[in-house]
């Protein structure tokens, strides 16, 4: 049961991500991405990271992708006239390269990892993550905060009507 859900979700994730490659309408692409992200959140949950699953939905799907959609709506982009990748001539080389890269990654992963002895999923509680965040990684949290602030200021500056 558990495995079925996992592999189904994984298939949904990959298919949805793959759909971005072939759709014309940016809104549809964004929605496929949202689906992929939601499925990924479920994968996180199944892998035993409930906090990250919730954060994935809240931040990625709930905030970032809404921004994305918002922008597309404001620009009122209609389906692109661009030739779909599979119709245009130059899709073979990138696809081939990507395939090779994937295979190489697989070789890399399988070369590096011994299969674990016990394969039970341990759920890592939000509390543990929080303690790790505000314990050894406190400095990085601060840095992330500064990064966000910097991004905020940058966006405010860029979106002003009259720039310096």
């Amino acid at each position, binding site marked *: 049961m558990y495995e079925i859900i996992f592999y189904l979700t994984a298939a949904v994730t990959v298919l949805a991500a793959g759909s971005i490659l072939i759709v014309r309408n940016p809104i549809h692409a964004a929605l496929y991405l949202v689906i992929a992200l939601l499925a990924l959140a479920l994968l996180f949950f199944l892998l035993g990271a409930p906090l990250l699953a919730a954060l994935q939905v809240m931040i990625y799907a709930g905030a970032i992708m809404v921004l994305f959609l918002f922008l597309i709506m404001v620009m009122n982009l209609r389906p692109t006239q661009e030739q779909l990748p599979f119709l245009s001539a130059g899709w073979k*080389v*990138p696809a081939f*390269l*990507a395939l*090779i*890269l994937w295979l*190489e*990654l697989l*070789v*890399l992963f399988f*070369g590096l990892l011994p299969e674990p002895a016990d394969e039970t999923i341990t759920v890592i509680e939000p509390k543990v993550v929080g303690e790790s965040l505000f314990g*050894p990684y406190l*400095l990085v949290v601060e840095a992330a905060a500064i990064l966000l602030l910097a991004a905020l200021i940058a966006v405010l500056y860029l979106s002003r009507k009259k720039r310096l």
Partner: protein
Amino acid sequence: MNQLLWLIPGAPILSALIIVLLGGFLRYRHIAVLASCAAAAAFLTVLLAWLNGAANAQPLQQTVYTWVAVGDWRPTVGLMLDRISLVMVSVVSGVGLLIHLYSIAFMAKDNDYRRYYFFLNLFLGGMLLLVLADNLLLLYLGWELVGLCSFALIGFWYRDPVRASAGRKAFITTRIGDLSLALGIFLLFSQFNTLSLPVLFDAISEQWQPNSQLAAITAFMIFAGAVGKSAQIPLQVWLPDAMAGPSPVSALIHAATMVTAGVYLIARMHPLFELTPLVQWTVAAIGAVTILYGASSALAQNDLKRVLAYSTISQIGYMFLALGCGAYAFALFHLVTHAFFKSLLFLTAGAIIQANNHEHDIHRLGSHGGHSLLMHGCFLVGAASLAGIPVITAGFYSKEAILTTVWPASTGQLLWVIAALGTLVTSIYIFRTYFLLFQNSQKAVSISPVNRMMVWPLFILALLSITAGFVEFPAGWPGPQLWSTWLENEFGTATHPPLATVYVLQLIASLLPLLGAGIAFLLVRREKTGYRLPLSDFLRDGWKFDATYKIVLVGGYFRLAHFFKLIESLLIDAMLHKMTRGYKVFATYCRTGFEYGVLNRGLNGLLSGLRFGHAQLSTAQNGLLNRYALMICAGAVFLLGYWLW
């Protein structure tokens, strides 16, 4: 004491942070005092370390922070204070403190003081981090930090496009060296899986055979990094232009501390270099060539600060020469004395230039800011020390030590001759400058007097330029040799030739500066009557290195692309069409389909090859995002494949 170690780089960095974050609330005076206090805190901590016996005990160590722990790889912010770094830390923090004090008065009229002090403090912190780091990763961080600060301070008056481009030039030129250093570090990491210096040294001496190829490559990579930072041939072109920055910056970064980082790096990595005599010899050879290059170029300069810049290049050449001959202790010794007398010269020059309303030409500098005698004295002390006037100056002792140890090295006689020639030329150019500056000092009235605050650092530095040499008397002299015995544990003793030879060499070497001063006196006299040195244009432009680089490197790429394009169009238009047509006619005439196919296809293949070359070169920057992504992907595929395979 171990727990206080973080304070040495930490105090300047913290103060830099305060200045950049809260500086808007502070006045000039507060910022300047805060920055100076931070430098003083670092210096006092170093003093404390001395008092607590850092000089003779085990190295002090402190692990401040662990970046991340992945398996057994844990890069740390770990500090280590052994004798090598103690030397560097003392010089950097001491000279840094003096220059901070000097800057208080020097920068008082500049509006961008906040940026200035931020970068000055950040630089000090980065430099201290560099020399204290106990692993190469942190060292590299400090290395980049000082590079960044150097860039920002050279282009400090960035509204002048020349100065801004000087900053960029310095950054880009040193970046070539930095890249090489990074590659060297990667190599070391890939071989030993660690970057911690003590562990690395043990591993190097255990696992690598002397003269092994890998060791040579790694040592060469690191050496190239040092070359970039220390402005040696062929990456020296940035330093003369770096004089666009404020004078205290030139004194601190481009004379006393940052440019010597390369010397420190090689001294620090000496177990690696000792494995590869070839690279060691290269270090010495580059050093020797640079001595001549810098000294001869300085001879023809008219800009006071450029004289000093070329002089710095040449003096660091001495350090490299010493490093290449295995006399690490003497390289550091010269580094110390050079830091004193060169910053003295720079600060004096800065004061004089400021007093003359930012006039740089030595022929026209006349006013000495109301402290004529003092300026005169300081510059004379600095010049004498730089030239190495025997017995009384610090420069003599350090240079003498280097010259003596060069002799027994491989091809040492040749190197010695070059270095001795360098000594002569050094003496000529610096006394030429001195005579031009001070012989007719009454010709201009003082425009703005030199601030009293700027005088004290000069005074201290002048004192040090005289006395710092007395810790190490030359071989065979009846004086103490504290320096080399103190650093014996780190480097081992340097060899020197038999005493009889030593005395002869020393006699020659100590007569050369005096001779040089005499020649300079005559030269200045003739120069006043309009005489110019032969080749002076060539020398003034620093052996035309800039122009050559521009033609060879920048032009080369474009030339190549042009070449492909030209050949393609030439072949298509002029020859190939006709030729193909001719062959076609010929082929149809002969009715031999075989030839038609072979020739046509062959030529077409050649053609498309050329066209491909042109297209690839010219589309390397075609601005197409997808193409860039494709290239990145291809690179990733290739590298990963190579690595896996």
